[in-house]
């Protein structure tokens, strides 16, 4: 759905249909906005499947492999999500450490990934092959790019919003038709050419 043409239609609707309602100004207001961008979800698990909960995470950008670009901790499922700077391509590195266990994983970032679907972080977890002979549990870090690229906001409208807009458009056409019809009758009241 094209947003821009819709807005050009809605403005005449508001003025021509006579449905515009003036709202009082707000004493306090907030502005919420959002940006949709590629994100990386790292799932940190021991080979037993047990998540590395609240493990230390350091993310290094390709531009500086010595100073963390961002630090944080994994969540209760062993997941950590970050949005790399899309302008910085190359190998991003994520180091995860906990209680003497740790690993570094390299995530190549070339261009923003194409849109497929939004994957929940938990869906990206992969458990390493268990080794019953292991004295300790190795760490499995499973990265997955959460493919999210810029999308028009109209694609995220609810059905109610969509039908309201469709109805408004139809009403706009009807109103516009009446408007021109009335102008025609005024300019040629007798219908004489």
């Amino acid at each position, binding site marked *: 759905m094209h947003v821009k043409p819709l807005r050009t239609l809605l403005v005449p609707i508001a003025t021509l249909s006579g449905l515009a309602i003036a709202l009082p100004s707000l004493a306090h207001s907030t502005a919420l906005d959002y940006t949709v961008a590629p994100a990386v979800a790292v799932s940190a698990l*021991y*080979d*037993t499947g047990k998540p590395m909960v609240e493990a230390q995470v350091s993310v*290094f950008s390709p531009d500086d*492999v*010595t100073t963390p670009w961002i630090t944080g901790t994994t969540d209760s499922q062993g997941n950590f999500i970050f949005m790399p700077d899309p302008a910085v391509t190359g*190998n991003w*590195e994520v*180091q995860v*450490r906990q*209680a*003497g*266990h*740790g*690993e*570094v*994983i*390299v995530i*190549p970032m070339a261009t923003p990934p194409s849109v497929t679907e939004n994957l929940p972080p938990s869906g990206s977890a992969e458990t390493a*092959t268990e*080794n019953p*002979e*292991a*004295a*300790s*549990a*190795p*760490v499995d870090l499973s990265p997955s790019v959460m493919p999210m690229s810029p999308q028009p906001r109209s694609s995220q409208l609810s059905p109610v919003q969509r039908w309201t807009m469709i109805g408004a458009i139809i009403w706009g056409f009807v109103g516009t038709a009446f408007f021109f019809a009335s102008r025609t009758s005024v300019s040629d009241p007798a219908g004489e050419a």
Partner: protein
Amino acid sequence: MVSVSYGCASSNAPSSTTPDTSAVSDAPETEEGLLQVRANGEDFVREGFVSKDGWEIGFDHVYVNLANVKAYQTDASFDPEVDTTLEPNQDVMVVEQQTVDLAEGEADADPILLAEVSAPAGRYNALEWTMPKAADGPAAGHVLMLVGTAEKDGQVVNFTLRLDQEMRYVCGNFVGDERKGILEAGSTADLEATFHFDHIFGDGEAASDDSINTGALGFEPLAAIAQGDTLDVDMTMLEEQLSPDDYTRLQDTIAGLGHVGEGHCALEEMA
């Protein structure tokens, strides 16, 4: 695919190839810096610790024989737990053979410097070493020799463990508080071979169901075979005197000693 678990289970370490330098003669001279490699037995060795079964262990000496210590520049994504081959574009031999005492120095001593060599600038993201039997020195004939004292509930055991399990480790990026191996021209960088002795004895400060303890031998099985207050054994004697399960566990934990900080290594038992 190499199945590696912390270096805790036997596996085939990645094979490595020597970079082709036949065409280097026409290439511009590479800028160099100083690359250091250190060996670290961590606080467990320098300060002592309590085993998973409550023995207070202190070390007088922890001799480790190291050989063919090589640093590599390789593909950034090299992961010894996954990759079966190591194809470096740069390799540097740092130590051909050396026996080091990891317990040397005070409790707050720095990790022991094995060697410092001139090396081409770049990022050294892989480290390999072997642990063969020492040809001479205090640990002659052995790979590892642990000398110290263990105490629990008034019982004291003076131990000397002579371990002969020959291993080869191939490790990836150092994992720790700082990043290592990033060598700029004219400067110094270091790498570290880290040895986790809590893998053998466990850690009394960790939960009993923590993986560090569930796989560890502890000291109790060793104390049980002591002669009075003395335990002086080699691998042959340990195989004879420990239960099969305990001996297997000891072998596994010895194999799992090698790390790079907290980072894991692929390993193979040397024939």
